[in-house]
């Protein structure tokens, strides 16, 4: 039987794996007493259910439940002075757990501290929009929807932002191949001419090194004067331009003879 290859993660894989290799983990420190992060943790713990909290590379990381994202961000914004949300997006863990991890990267400008909120949602589960708190989410949540297909509730204008409106599939999911899927390959043909024209046009050859010897539109033919767009065989009369059909250096026999015309 052939080897079964799972299709839930088609991204690039390590070409060599050592089965005894155990990847280390970036150290996670517990939240220090009396620090700024301790106060944030305290305030968050009172308002929402904190699933996990630690300090990773100098930034506080708090895991919360997805239903409480607005409540948690309200605490961060109003109580803890996190006036800016730097970034928000998702990470695809569908293959492992059937879940997306959504992160909110927050910044406190007065104390120059950063906190990250993490929450996990199931595939198909929606998350509440944070646009009323941070207007930057208008674009960021649209991008998240565009790239992962995560529905955001109560977003003022939830529409694809980077990909075209009628694109099929969500490009940053792990199931989406780097080269694009079938819909991506035929996008323009389907849109302009219709699906039935796929057979007429034929598959696109994406090999940049491919040369069609009889293509009279992009290449000239040495020794022939061929009209632009002429079919193969038409008007292939020999021109008095000197060229040689002979192989100049025959590498198979190792002959040293170069151009015999000289």
């Amino acid at each position, binding site marked *: 039987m052939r080897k079964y290859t799972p299709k839930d993660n088609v991204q690039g894989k390590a070409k060599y794996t050592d089965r005894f290799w155990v990847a280390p983990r*970036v150290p996670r420190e517990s939240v220090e007493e009396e620090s700024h992060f301790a106060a944030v943790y305290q305030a968050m713990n009172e308002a929402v259910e904190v699933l996990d909290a630690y300090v990773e590379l100098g930034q506080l990381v708090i895991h919360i439940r997805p239903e409480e994202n607005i409540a948690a961000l309200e605490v961060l914004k109003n109580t803890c002075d996190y006036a800016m949300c730097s970034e928000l997006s998702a990470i695809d863990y569908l293959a492992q757990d059937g879940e997306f991890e959504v992160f909110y990267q927050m910044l406190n400008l007065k104390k120059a501290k950063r906190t990250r909120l993490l929450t996990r949602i199931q595939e198909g589960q929606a998350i509440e929009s944070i646009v009323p708190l941070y207007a930057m989410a208008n674009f960021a949540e649209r991008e998240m929807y565009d790239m992962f297909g995560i529905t955001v509730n109560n977003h003022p204008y939830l529409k694809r932002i980077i990909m075209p409106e009628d694109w099929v599939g969500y490009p940053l999911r792990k199931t989406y191949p780097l080269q694009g899927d079938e819909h991506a390959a035929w996008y323009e043909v389907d849109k302009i001419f219709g699906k039935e024209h796929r057979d007429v046009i034929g598959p696109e050859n994406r090999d940049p090194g491919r040369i069609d010897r009889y293509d009279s539109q992009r290449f000239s033919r040495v020794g022939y004067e061929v009209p632009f767009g002429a079919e193969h065989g038409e008007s292939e009369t020999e021109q008095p331009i000197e060229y040689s059909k002979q192989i100049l250096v025959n590498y198979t026999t190792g002959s040293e003879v170069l151009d015999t015309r000289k």
Partner: protein
Amino acid sequence: MQEPNKLKPFFENLNFERDDNTMVINFGPQHPSAHGQLRLVLELDGEKVVKAYPDIGYLHRGVEKMAENMIYNEFLPTTDRLDYIASTSNNYAFALSVERLIGLEVPRRAQVIRTMLLELNRIMSHLFFLATHALDVGAMSVFLYAFREREFAMDLVEDYCGARLTHSAVRIGGVPLDLPAGWLEQLSTYIDKLPEQIKLYEDLLTENRIWKMRLEDVGVVTPEDALSWGCTGVLLRGSGIQYDVRKEEPYELYGELDFDIPVSDRNDSYGRYRLYMEEMKESVKILRQLIPMHRKTEPQIMAHNPKYISAPKEEIMTQNYALMQHFVLVTQGMRPPKGTVYAPTESPKGELGFFIRSEGEPYAYRLKIRAPSFFHTGILQHILPGTYLADVVAIIGNTNIVFGEVDR
């Protein structure tokens, strides 16, 4: 009404010819002052913008997707193509986040060179901003003068790394080369000349009646809006909030250097233009302090960490173990520990940060680029309504957005 057919599909339900007095126009995506591929759908009432809808994605290349399919060192040259006006700042932001992830200490000479390149890039980017912004507003000659100075800066970068736009002048763990002979003298000549030139631009523009009329009270971003819409860099400081990642969360040598963060509470385009000019002067100040620092450092330019970083070339060519390490690192790539990092840097456009989730594999599990221009494009839908069509060009130019970074 539009009549959709297969060649002209119905255009996103936009009704261009309307019954009321408003008119919908497409600004871009091929507009010369859209600074790249920005399509801005504007609803106009006479000359006044009623509604603005920025449509992006015309330069989308899937950089984040590519990052998930490449080893870390392979991805570094790709970052050049984000903010292509100041490539080194992207290279650096990516290298910094990987270095934080693997906990790497960069040798001091590499730090000096990196800081120099970052500031040189800032000058290049700000000169480019000034040139194109002035051109948009109608000051053609400033464009020529600013591009002349920018050429010298690009020559300096070319002398260092061989490329003028896509530098890739930073590596994870250091820099690939030491400065060529005579480079520092050329740099000091350049930074001696530059303040005179900046003064010339300021003489041309700062008190210029037309320039002031075009910029003053145009594109007002209140501090609340700036924070809420995620504005960083000059757009944030132009709204009276003094936040610069170089000062507040220092990286490289910025903690040791003496420089000021100019801030303006005018909230308008004119204030931001003044900030760009002041920032160039601060960059000159930083470069002047960096030149003597280079001589005092040890010649090592790449970090020594055989687990993640290849040894220097001489060692690879002479020592077996270094060769083996190099082979493994090139063919398989480094495997950073599992974890997440978000490393903010102050790029010329604003806060540029790479969010990396590593699962201990040679490929990043998820890489999110926090591009300042993306959010500066987002705020256009908020600040454009209420302005005149002629000011739209000035405001887009003033936000200094670069579409390599917006669309990624």
